[in-house]
């Protein structure tokens, strides 16, 4: 008999808190245990490692972009405008004769930085606070909880758009900072909830009874149990932020030109008849994002079923 997915918590608290704007609802779906089949102790499976390898390859390409034998992303070759994929231009060129392979790889740098860095910052800040708040209930917990609730209640895409409207020029560190600010309260809630579910378990009580220091309980007893949930949610968070940045870039509200980013390449590909003339411009970055998000979502899903993560009330 397959193990049943646990009922989604219906505590009203979870509604507002789930609300990452834009892609927030996706997180709800993704948070559900997959098919309920738990083929435990069999390793993470081929799919997981293929996905992980794909993500790693993309990160490597982005890191090595400037030493790879590809053309400069903004080099315009007017003898090759709007050409299809060929040996010279593996993915073709755009309406200004720029090499699309190079533009996608350089463009992915923005997406990857914006996807991973704020989540890592958020994990450190939100995670530390969440661990503390979950273990030490009381006024600190109440205050942090309320603050995170208000921060999450305000739709993230909206907040970022409004802030950047008045905080120009927009550069990478500002976006990264804003996105860290968006992701920290979410990660805080996940880690706090997970900590809460462990804080009164026997092994923690036993550790306290033997006179363990708080720091030992936090880092040696609680932390290892929280890592799977945190990593799984962090992967979804990375996917969410990449979507968020892509949406902003598509609207022309992310890093400004001439830096290419996947969203603004897609925007390029949609504007001024480009979709009719050369669908490749929009196609390649779309495909890149699709594959990257699929890999991240599958990894998160696999981790969740592997560690048998129950529904967490955010």
């Amino acid at each position, binding site marked *: 008999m397959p193990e049943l997915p646990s009922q989604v918590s219906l505590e009203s608290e979870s509604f507002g808190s789930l609300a990452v704007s834009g892609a927030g609802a996706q997180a709800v779906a*993704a948070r559900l245990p997959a098919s309920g089949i738990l083929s435990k102790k069999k390793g993470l499976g081929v799919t997981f490692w293929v996905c992980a390898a794909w993500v790693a390859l993309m990160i490597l390409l982005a890191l090595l972009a400037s030493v790879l034998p590809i053309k400069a992303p903004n080099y315009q070759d007017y003898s090759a405008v709007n050409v299809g994929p060929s040996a010279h231009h593996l993915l073709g060129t755009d309406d200004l004769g720029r090499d699309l392979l190079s533009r996608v790889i350089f463009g992915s740098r923005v997406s990857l930085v914006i996807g991973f860095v704020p989540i890592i910052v958020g994990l450190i800040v939100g995670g530390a606070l969440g661990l503390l708040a979950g273990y030490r209930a009381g006024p600190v917990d109440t205050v942090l909880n309320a603050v995170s609730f208000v921060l999450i209640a305000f739709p993230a895409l909206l907040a970022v758009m409004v802030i950047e409207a008045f905080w120009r020029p927009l550069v990478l560190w500002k976006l990264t900072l804003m996105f860290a600010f968006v992701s920290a309260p979410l990660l805080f809630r996940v880690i706090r909830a997970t900590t809460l579910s462990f804080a009164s378990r026997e092994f923690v009580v036993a550790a306290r009874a033997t006179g363990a220091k708080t720091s030992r309980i936090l880092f040696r007893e609680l932390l290892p149990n929280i890592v799977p949930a945190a990593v799984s949610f962090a992967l979804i968070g990375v996917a969410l932020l990449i979507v968020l940045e*892509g949406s902003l870039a598509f609207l022309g509200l992310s890093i400004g030109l001439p830096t290419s980013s996947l969203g603004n390449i897609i925007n390029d590909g949609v504007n001024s008849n480009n979709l009719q003339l050369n669908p490749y411009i929009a196609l390649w970055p779309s495909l890149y994002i699709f594959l990257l998000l699929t890999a991240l979502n599958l990894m998160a899903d696999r981790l969740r079923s592997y560690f048998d993560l129950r529904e967490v009330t955010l």
Partner: protein
Amino acid sequence: MLRFVANRLVQLVVICFLISIFAFLLVHLLPGDPAKTILGPNDTPANHAILLKQLGLNKGLVSQYVTWITNIFHGNLGASFLTKETVTSSLSEAVPIDLELVIVSQVLALIVAIPMALVAALRPNRAFDKIATTSTFGMLSLPTFVAGPLLVLLFAVTLKWVPATGFNRLSQGLGPNLKSVILPSVALAIGSVTVYYRLLRADLIATLQEDFVTMARSKGLSTRYILVRHVMRPSSFSLLAGAGISIGTLFTGAFVVEILFQLPGIGYQLVNGIYANDYLVVQGMALVAAVAFVVVNFAVDFLLTILDPRVRRA
């Protein structure tokens, strides 16, 4: 029950209040001076002082907030400094568009997701379930700025079934109106289908294992009757919660679709306000969108307590 609702209402008011402060501070505490942006090249000290006085920006923060919020309660959200159109009248044009988008896209999503989930949950892990689950995973990785251009490419550019952009109001006839909203609605529905399918499927599988279903089966009731009368209601709570989040997010998250398809909804106006540095428009629209988001979630919350008495005791 009454006490529960009253409690929630107080929460709602507090959150709305905090959101209004947040929206206000977003614009006021940030580096960058609205008067300077508005004046542009005409920014002489004399002009600057006059404009600051006109905008009320020369007073203290608290009194500015009080003026702003009092005006809002009188239905006055200010006016665009560019077009001189009041924010309220822009809103009255924008909101119907958003409502239509939300309704059409969510109905589409539910029409697809509910039957899919029912069939999949009846025979979990069989062929249909696997195909459906895999394809929703793919849809999870298709953000609107990727799905939108692909839809335009397929249905507007290649097949020429519907116009690529533009909006026909309902007063111009139902046919043209639907033609102009169908593609954007599909683009928005893609994300929701995944959410609804996964939430409902997981809940259905759990409910189908309950004793009362076995009981109904042994009474000889037909599968269809059991599904409709016994299983759907207890399985619909997460779906409803998910719908609340989805709908709330759409009010603020339809930016990309509205810009891509040139539909003058809230998102479109907000983004254009940002492009133009029109700070009262940005502030007003952001406030309305964020409050709509919270109110929708509150309404769903309320609906849930009626459907599922257990929530009240939680």
